[in-house]
């Protein structure tokens, strides 16, 4: 009995210690464990949530998409060449205490290209650097296109113009970490320069990061952030309601409850996600889609306002073309897609398919999350246009492969931007050379405008090219734009500075617990 009592007292003490330590630690939910915690293999959302607070790149961006200089103090285009010269910030220290220099930039870029590192998202951002193929094939470890001028100056050259390179989220890491802590360093420490550093990862339970007391910029006002692994959306909401979370990233299954609960209005943040959504119509698979009038008729049949109210409980926003708000190069005055069933019928008749006669039956396909939407489109197109549309739900990985191969005729999908510049969407989604042009809408004029934009350093000029390209897409109905889904967060009244943005949460360096 005495042993039991002692054990119990021990528990209570542990609990007390835990509460005291948690006092200024921000608690937020994530849907799963991160798959990795290093900036080289980084390739998924949860890891990004954590790493964004721990590592830094040349630049970062504000919640409204403005670029701010971080580890690059300034940069200039190399005259007569494709490339940049970066002036690096001085007096920046890694979490290890070592100074951040040009050597670390080069090391990170080489790691992203090395054949044995399983590089993730970052590998795509270094693809145009001179000499990348030789590193990828293992011929050499040195990236010939990267030249260290001095400790705080570095030149990077590209095979093709890459004007957005300075804003790519390439997170720089400490080149001395492997020598210091071994190849397994990621289990015990972090190798970044950011306002937080790695503290502990208890698999299945949480990842915790601590404020970096030696941070070069404005230091965090909280002691740390604990990302609690909570796969179930209802459990996460209950934990928030019981005060076990300070910030809730609202999951799909609870959107309805959160949006309808008037008592949560003050704690609620609703922002459009940086995800461009569309209903693709692949003319290579289904011949009638070659006719612009058929594509336009389908777009006119979709009642987007009704969808936003009915499907999303107003947690969605109209998308006019391709680009979403919070991304540089977004224009809010592009023409809004229309809902006009009568005009749609007329257009389809003009195209030679009055009342849908003569149109072969077609599958509308996507993954299980789109199930309700698919049913809506199929019904609506059948009722209004007389099209015979079958709903087809496919397993995700199989479906992505088929879309990439251009085998899917008719499908709703979304493309999430990796950095806050419209080029991400415009080039990857609809340029004819992009491997991700899954709807196979090809337009020479659009291609030409985007090609010109990729070589245009001047922002204002480049954004005008974006605008023209987006107008080409809208006029030609490259696909039917679909509403943007919102990111929804709940933040307790005693927490300030924790902001939901189109790209997940803003860095928690601005958060404060009262």
């Amino acid at each position: 009995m005495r042993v039991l009592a002692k054990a119990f007292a021990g528990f209570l003490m542990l609990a007390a210690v835990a509460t005291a330590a948690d006092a200024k630690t921000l608690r937020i939910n994530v849907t799963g464990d991160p798959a990795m915690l290093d900036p080289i293999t980084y390739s998924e959302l949860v890891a990004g949530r954590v790493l964004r607070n721990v590592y830094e790149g040349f630049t970062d961006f504000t919640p409204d998409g403005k670029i701010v200089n971080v580890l690059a103090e300034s940069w200039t285009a190399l005259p007569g060449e494709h490339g940049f010269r970066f002036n690096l910030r001085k007096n920046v220290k890694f979490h290890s205490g070592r100074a951040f220099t040009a050597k670390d930039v080069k090391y990170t870029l080489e790691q992203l290209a090395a054949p044995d590192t399983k590089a993730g998202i970052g590998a795509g951002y270094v693809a145009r650097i001179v000499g990348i193929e030789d590193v990828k094939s293992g011929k050499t470890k040195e990236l010939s296109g990267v030249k260290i001028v001095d400790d705080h100056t570095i030149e990077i050259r590209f095979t093709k113009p890459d004007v957005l390179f300075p804003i790519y989220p390439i997170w720089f890491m400490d080149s001395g970490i492997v020598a210091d802590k071994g190849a397994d360093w990621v289990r015990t420490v972090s190798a970044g320069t950011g306002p937080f550093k790695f503290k502990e990862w208890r698999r299945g339970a949480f990842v915790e990061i601590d404020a970096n007391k030696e941070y070069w910029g404005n230091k965090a006002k909280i002691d740390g952030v604990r990302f609690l692994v909570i796969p179930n959306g209802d459990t996460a909401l209950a934990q928030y309601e019981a005060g076990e979370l300070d910030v809730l990233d609202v999951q799909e299954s609870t959107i309805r409850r959160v949006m309808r609960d008037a008592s949560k209005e003050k704690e609620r943040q609703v922002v459009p996600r940086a995800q461009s959504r569309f209903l693709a119509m692949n003319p290579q698979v289904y011949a009638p889609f070659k006719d612009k009038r058929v594509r336009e008729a389908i777009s006119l049949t979709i009642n987007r306002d009704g969808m936003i109210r009915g499907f999303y409980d107003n947690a969605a926003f109209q998308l006019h073309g391709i680009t979403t708000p919070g991304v540089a190069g977004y224009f809010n005055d592009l023409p809004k897609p229309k809902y006009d069933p009568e005009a749609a019928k007329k257009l389809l008749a003009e195209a030679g398919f009055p009342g849908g006669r003569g149109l072969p039956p077609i599958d509308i396909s996507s993954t299980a999350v789109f199930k309700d939407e698919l049913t809506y489109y199929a019904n609506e197109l059948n009722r209004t246009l007389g099209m015979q549309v079958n709903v087809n739900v496919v397993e995700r990985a199989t479906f992505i492969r088929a879309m990439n191969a251009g085998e899917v005729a008719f499908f709703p999908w979304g493309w999430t931007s990796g950095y806050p510049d419209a080029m991400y969407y415009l080039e990857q989604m609809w340029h004819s050379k992009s491997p991700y042009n899954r709807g196979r809408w090809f337009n020479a004029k659009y291609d030409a405008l985007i090609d010109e934009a990729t070589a245009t350093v001047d922002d204002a000029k480049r954004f005008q090219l974006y605008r023209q390209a987006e107008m080409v897409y809208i006029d030609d109905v490259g696909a039917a734009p679909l509403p943007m889904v919102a990111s929804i967060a709940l933040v307790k009244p005693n927490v300030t500075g924790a902001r939901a943005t189109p790209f997940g949460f803003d860095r928690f360096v601005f958060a404060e617990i009262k």
Partner: protein
Amino acid sequence: MLRFVAWRLAGLVPVLGIVLVATFLATYALPGDPVLVMLSDHSSNVEMANRLRAEYGLDQPLWKQFFNYIAGVAVGDFGMSYRYVRIPVVEVLSDGIKISPILALAALAAAASIGVGAGILAAIKRNSGIDTAIILILVAGLSIPNFAFATFFVYLFSIKLGALPVAGWGRIDQAILPVAILAIPSAAYIARLTRTFMLEVLGQDYIRTARAKGLAERVVIARHALRNILVPLLTSMGIIFGGLISGTFVVETIFNIPGLGRLAIDSVFARDYPVAMAIVMLFTAFFVLINLAVDVAYAIIDPRIRQRMGVK
């Protein structure tokens, strides 16, 4: 006795072997190529796909993959997780394995003590108001699904009263709700069995003899009646424990407990087949071991069985 245990432990090998083949083939037949899942948006990148296939040995013929897997499992190597970069399966499981068995055993202990107690009480007070009330509670416990109980309990105890945490694992107060929810259906089942067995035993001649000897009712129940229903009760414990293990899948998900049940569900969704397969193997071994323990317990309780087993 030792020979019996050794024999039963040897029997574990073919059972695990069959489960191994079945799960291996099942994961192979499931839709969703794990390499495509890993590549996600980049599945048109053939170079990357080939590299990953080679790295996980997925480029080899099925029989060879299977042989490699068996050879690994034999020495306790369940391969690398598909989902966590460069983390072996054994490490992914290492935390959960300390949680789920404790959760299930705690629920079993709670269910057995409450169930047997309620069952005996109902049998002794047969046809009284107490009996009817207990039966009513039993029917509710058996027929209301545990996720419904969980939602209600969390709402009442955690959100309204603020007495218990909503979720998590690691402190005693975090274990109360999940253990209770997990135990409810089993407790109800055990109580019903106990009541039935008890009523049967109480009608036997030897009970009448015991009472005629002038033994106190307490002694009659505890020593003569209870001991005789323990064997049929124990038989059902193996089954009940199987139910508890599958119950952990639901309860761990609802209460966000990082055990094997929640991990199993997560890894199936993430197509992390090596982890899912290892969990199935673990649960199988666990289930077989519990049934072995039940058999050993028979021998301890019932001298007749001990004799049949050839144990002295």
